[in-house]
């Protein structure tokens, strides 16, 4: 017991990523190369609590390494010395010795000592992770998982960010780790994440923040973080959420409070402009709606129904030539606004009238659908 504790004491002062190779006989072989380019351990934490989690991780790993070496030591000693080919005679009374009679007490007590050491250290950190601070000036960010994109609502600032993966041709080396709109967060302020989902389970995971929480439809779960350095931190959805589970990156951009304030102002201005445009009492031309609709369709609908409109049947039906899209406008509007239950088609009613009008117009005229229908924002208003 005391030996173990001493070991832990000694080890915990030198928490280095390199000690992972302690476990890794194979890892040693690649270690030099890997440390430079590919991670073999958690990325450096960007929050104090994340650092504590990292320390717990290193501690348990070191304990595990020591125990593993002890087991390996005994086994290999025995394999070498207690062989028949070396003429070793089996000790038929070994299990009747003092050791044989009492080891069932000794071993569990020793293991219990190690267990309590780990549990004790973990318990303190666990409380910090779990107790979401209830402060006045905490920044609330509602994180909503969708198939297959993230929505971040800054509840205090009335800003909404939609975050989608960037296709390979535009993201290059960062493919599947890069998004179009990042989650911008200030350093030095406590942030409360409220996780929920619009459809199936997702999980929010950014290793630098050491935050992972499931997004459960109909429920809200909480986590929190306080960033202690600026930078760009990348994570991915960590709960299997269907076809494009691999395409749900999360990119956190950690900035100074001043930069964050400026960013908030920018976002507000953009929002005001968009709202003004949508509510303008204007009749839109086909070309305008098609241009808007193309962009919107490709970001919001393209993941499932594909940019080509061919979909991925049977899960995601083709829109090209589909009965729904070439049929009555009312039914088309309804499925877009309300979604279709029991399928991956979710309600898109949170989009504004102009956006829905543009998407519907685009769908009815793109890919040789050529219905010639022009759907105006006022039609959408009526359909709601």
């Amino acid at each position: 017991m005391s030996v173990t504790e001493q070991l832990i004491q000694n080890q915990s002062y030198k928490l280095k990523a390199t000690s992972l190779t302690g476990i890794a006989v194979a890892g040693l072989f690649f270690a030099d190369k890997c440390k430079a380019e590919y991670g073999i351990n958690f990325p450096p934490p960007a929050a104090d609590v994340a650092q504590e989690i990292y320390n717990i991780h290193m501690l348990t790993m070191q304990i595990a390494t020591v125990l593993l070496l002890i087991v390996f030591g005994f086994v290999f000693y025995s394999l070498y010395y207690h062989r028949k080919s070396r003429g070793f005679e089996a000790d038929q009374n070994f299990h009747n010795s003092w050791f044989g009679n009492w080891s069932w007490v000794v071993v569990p007590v020793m293991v219990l000592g190690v267990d309590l050491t780990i549990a004790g250290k973990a318990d303190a950190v666990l409380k910090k992770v779990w107790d979401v601070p209830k402060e006045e000036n905490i920044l609330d960010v509602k994180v909503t998982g969708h198939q297959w994109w993230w929505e971040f609502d800054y509840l205090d600032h009335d800003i909404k960010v939609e975050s989608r993966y960037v296709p390979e041709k535009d993201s290059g080396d960062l493919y599947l780790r890069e998004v179009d709109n990042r989650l911008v967060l200030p350093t030095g302020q406590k942030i409360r994440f409220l996780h929920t989902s619009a459809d199936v389970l997702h999980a929010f995971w950014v290793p630098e923040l050491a935050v992972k929480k499931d997004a459960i439809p109909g429920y809200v779960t909480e986590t929190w973080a306080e960033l202690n350095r600026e930078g760009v931190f990348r994570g991915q959805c960590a709960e299997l959420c269907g076809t494009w589970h691999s395409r749900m990156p999360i990119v956190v951009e950690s900035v100074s409070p001043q930069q964050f304030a400026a960013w908030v102002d920018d976002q507000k201005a953009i929002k005001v402009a968009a709202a003004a445009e949508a509510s303008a009492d204007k009749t839109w031309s086909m070309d305008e709606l098609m241009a808007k609709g193309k962009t919107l369709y490709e970001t919001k609908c393209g993941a499932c129904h594909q940019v080509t409109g061919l979909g991925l049947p049977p899960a995601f039906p083709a829109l090209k030539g589909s009965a729904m899209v070439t049929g009555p406008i009312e039914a088309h509007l309804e499925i877009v606004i309300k979604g279709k239950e029991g399928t991956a088609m979710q309600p898109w009613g949170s989009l504004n009238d102009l956006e829905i009008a543009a998407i519907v117009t685009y769908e009815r005229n793109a890919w040789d659908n050529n219905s010639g229908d022009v759907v105006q924002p006022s039609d959408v208003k009526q359909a709601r």
Partner: protein
Amino acid sequence: MTTTTLNHDEAHHHDMPTGWRRWLFSTNHKDIGTLYLLFALTMLFLGGASAMLIRLELFQPGIQLLDPDLYNNLVTNHALIMIFGAVMPAAAGLANWMIPMMIGAPDMALPRMNNLSFWILPAAATMLILSFVVPFFPGGGTQINTGWTLYPPLSVQVGMSMDFLIFAIHLLGISSVLASINIIVTLLNMRAPGMTLMTMPMFCWTWLVTAFLLILVVPVLAGGVTMLLFDRHFGTSFFDAAGGGDPVLFQHLFWFFGHPEVYILLLPSIGVLSHVIPAFSRKPLFGYKSMVGAMLTVATIGMVVWAHHQYTVGMSLGAVTYFMIGTILISIPVGLMIFNFIATMWRGAMTFETPMLFAVAIILMFTFGGLSGVMLAVVPADMQYHDSMFVVAHFHYVLMPGAVFGLFAGVFYWLPKWTGHMYDETLGKIFFWTNVIGFNITFFPQHFLGLAGMPRRIVDYNMMFTEFNVISSVGAIIFGLSHLLLLYIVIKTIRGGKKAESRAWEGAKGLEWELDSPPAFHTWTVAPQIK
């Protein structure tokens, strides 16, 4: 204890049917054991093939081979086929073959039910395979892209193949519950006179505990998937928050089954080890009583720590603390088991035939997997590990050595008894080394992938994960192909080879080694007297 008194002549030979009737209508524990083992071997190759496809897809970043839904479908099927199709039937096959021979019983207690519990399996396997292929037929709906955990609401979105899967799980569950009942009854009522519970062979003990676990938890899984079926088709909302249900409830039900399932897979192999290690160390098992105690403790604690698979769902602080401490405490009995095995080897006179090689590999690698399990049990750190490739590496390190290698060890150990021929020791050793090295190349790098941030169950990944995935995939090819050698060795041994003696191994102890190799069609028709 009731003893069996019967006419000695009648029990021999005269009622051994021939041709297909021998197998379809079999009530003989040896034939049913063989059927179980052959079934498991078939499914091992099916599940292995799907794993190879998964690894081939992950060989390089990008989507080359499989579309995402097919990938997820394979991930689902790989798990279900391996767990329900390969490991559990293989363990049941060993139980069928060995338990009556070990306890000096003429057959299983309920031979007709034994026949039923095997012959449900091919039907279940058909349903399972149909759930995989149905989407490729017109009108077949979407593929199962949920993983074996079948979490709603995603599993509610899936097409009719999910219904096939639910019924397959029901059938598999019925089969294993019936088999378990049979094994418990056999062990409690059919032991030879003089053999008490505390003197019966350890393999019997492990199966007794396993069978009880199965009876306790499989019905809960059946209940869970039935609720899923109702949610899908009959408008209930057990798991739908919009209707007042809770998606997390399914996770609790699933893992209430799923965690003890780990011990169900593990314990029979622990039982095999308890025979193999003493036999090749030429000294008795160290700590029989503490093994039994440790096993009962594992089973008990294992029943009440299920939620450590769901630390991220948002449980209360009290709940996660409880589950964390409970889970860490499992290391005590498991550690004691490992200790007993090492102590059995200690000061023994060891030789290293293939079963013993596997046994040593299990001790080392299972310890490794168990220790990464302790890391995963720690809630704050699990916030990072959860659903990453680290978890994939961990449970393969637990289940491959813990369950599958144990079964390999058992097969090599008892193959001479079953077939009457010694297997080719050189080939056995080659198989062992390619298998174990391939396994480690495959799964060791996945620890790094997980820590670096690669989630599990993704079809496509960023370039930063390429290197270890390449290594892993190369290892998987070696590992996967090595099993063809196993097939060859088994077939070769069945067809011929050096004649095996009754006691095929110098240090082997137990009633089964008193019988001929291969044993007569009916054995122990007169119960042996245990001193």
